[in-house]
């Protein structure tokens, strides 16, 4: 009972944490989408007054005004060309650059940093405060087979890749704030270069890992009855009855789908970033970096939460080590799955037993029909 209470607390707090996180994302997106509108309105106001201005004006003023109008009004009548043929050479002034800078410097770096630090800090706090959820009645010593070799391979493949991508990505994002004071400019420069190059090389492999993950895990992650109940009862702890959970509980399914969808978002934006010199992608590239960073921070936070869960709930790690879990663990955490597999196994066992009995009988006695 004690264990139950404790884990109820942890799961509740995790959910609060998750909802905070969702709010945060919504806010960020809202700001992102509104800020250009504000900016555009301001600029438009200016240009309106300019047309009414009287007196002599420098011809260059008109030029700059036109340039800015063009930049905000799309291709409204004014074209610019250049003899230089390279991407963006025709663009006179790229006003989006300023927005991108604002987003990165004023939003992403500070709030992204706070977000990540608070998530990790919060999880660490939970780790320290909340004791491990022990396997009820301890380990039985009997094990149940849970994950196949390929399932484990694809999981750890993803862990290695996402871990690596997270590490190198975070270095590139926060390295200037965090690592330069430690390593110095020159020291960080080659770390950052290495991060960038390997981030680019390993990036496409994430797509492979997502595919492997989909292939080997999707069968267990379809929504099933009881999932909603699980979510509403916060992991079955608000409900009085012990919830019967299948192969994965709703939380694990959410983790899976979050990983997959964020992974897809990261892959698409990441691929865009891999080909920055393709025509007409400059604006998309800026957007892609923004989305890429936000999705990555979310995924990293979710991954930390996942790690914390595994560390807290005793016996969960076994499944990913050698594919077998303790029988008591299975009974407690995934009772429906346990029953299904054991019933199936027993049926097999019984069959085999009967067969063996009968065959040995007949062998010994030589009964031939």
């Amino acid at each position, binding site marked *: 009972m004690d264990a139950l209470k404790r884990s109820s607390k942890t799961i509740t707090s995790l959910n609060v944490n998750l909802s905070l996180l969702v709010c945060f994302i919504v806010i960020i997106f809202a700001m992102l989408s509104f800020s250009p509108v504000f900016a555009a309105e301001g600029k438009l106001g200016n240009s309106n007054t300019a047309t009414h201005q*009287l*007196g*002599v004006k*420098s*011809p*260059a003023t*008109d*030029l700059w005004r*036109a*340039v800015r109008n*063009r930049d905000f009004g799309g291709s409204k009548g*004014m*074209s*610019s*060309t*250049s*003899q*230089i043929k*390279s991407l*963006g*050479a*025709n*663009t*006179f*002034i*790229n*006003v989006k*650059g*300023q927005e*991108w*800078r604002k987003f*990165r*410097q004023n939003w992403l770096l500070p709030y992204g940093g706070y977000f990540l630090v608070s998530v990790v800090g919060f999880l660490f706090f939970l780790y320290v405060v909340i004791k491990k959820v022990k396997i009820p009645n301890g380990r039985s010593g009997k094990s149940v087979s849970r994950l196949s070799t390929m399932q484990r391979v694809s999981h750890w493949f993803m862990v290695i890749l996402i871990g690596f991508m997270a590490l190198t990505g975070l270095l*590139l*994002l926060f*390295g*200037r704030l965090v690592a*330069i004071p430690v390593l110095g*400019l*020159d020291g*960080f*420069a080659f770390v*950052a*270069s290495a991060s*960038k*190059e390997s981030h*680019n090389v390993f990036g496409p492999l994430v797509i492979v890992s997502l595919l492997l993950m989909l292939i080997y895990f999707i069968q267990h992650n379809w929504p099933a009855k009881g999932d909603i109940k699980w979510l509403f009862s916060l992991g079955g702890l608000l409900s009085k009855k012990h919830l019967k959970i299948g192969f994965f509980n709703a939380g694990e399914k959410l983790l899976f789908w979050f990983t997959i969808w964020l992974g897809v978002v990261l892959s698409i934006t990441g691929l865009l970033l*891999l*080909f*920055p*010199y*393709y025509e007409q992608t*400059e604006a998309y*590239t*800026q957007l892609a*970096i923004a989305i890429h960073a936000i999705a990555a921070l979310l995924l990293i936070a979710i991954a930390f939460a996942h790690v914390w869960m595994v560390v807290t709930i005793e016996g969960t790690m076994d499944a990913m080590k050698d594919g077998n879990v303790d029988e008591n663990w299975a009974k407690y955490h995934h009772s429906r799955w346990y029953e299904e597999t054991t019933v199936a196994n027993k049926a097999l066992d019984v069959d085999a037993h009967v067969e063996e009995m009968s065959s040995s009988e007949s062998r010994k006695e030589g009964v031939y029909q």
Partner: protein
Amino acid sequence: MANVKFYCDSERCIECNGCVTACKNENDVPWGVNRRRVVTVKDGEPGERSLSVACMHCSDAPCAAVCPVDCFYTTDNGIVLHDKDICIGCGYCSYACPFGAPQFPESGAFSSKGKMDKCTFCAGGPEETGSAEEYQKYGANRLAEGKLPLCAEMCATKALLAGDANVVSDIYRQRVINRSMSTLASNVRIQKDFLGSSPDLTGKATK
């Protein structure tokens, strides 16, 4: 030393691309890298203007703000330079720069970016002044020799101005005044011819 600035006079620029050529030649930049370019607006339409654009050496440079490895620095005279030994070629500066100044040598078909290259105001870089490495990495250091950037010096119509910001703005202000005066003068003539009144040229009642 005071701040230095570029200014391009759109009334004078004739899109000859002399500045571009001069820059390429003086700094020996690789193919595909254009530290300076001339942009023409309303090409072939009434009101066509051209401007020569390069790094504007901003006071609050966006490139320096977003650089993940902090490779930018501003010299005493306000020139924004960067350290290629630190640059990792991530391209963030190019996303932030309004003028499209940062350039990247493309290495290979995957468009992996090499180290960023941009206008240095012909002021070299962090390497030892006048050294071969400096030239190889950043191009000429004309400023150290007491010369202005070649683009401006080569400008046939003196449209592209470079140098001490105060001097540049004085020159430009003088040009604007001169142009205004001539416009005014022609206005006066028109007024005289058609209205028969004598305008006041003290400058106090120009409206």
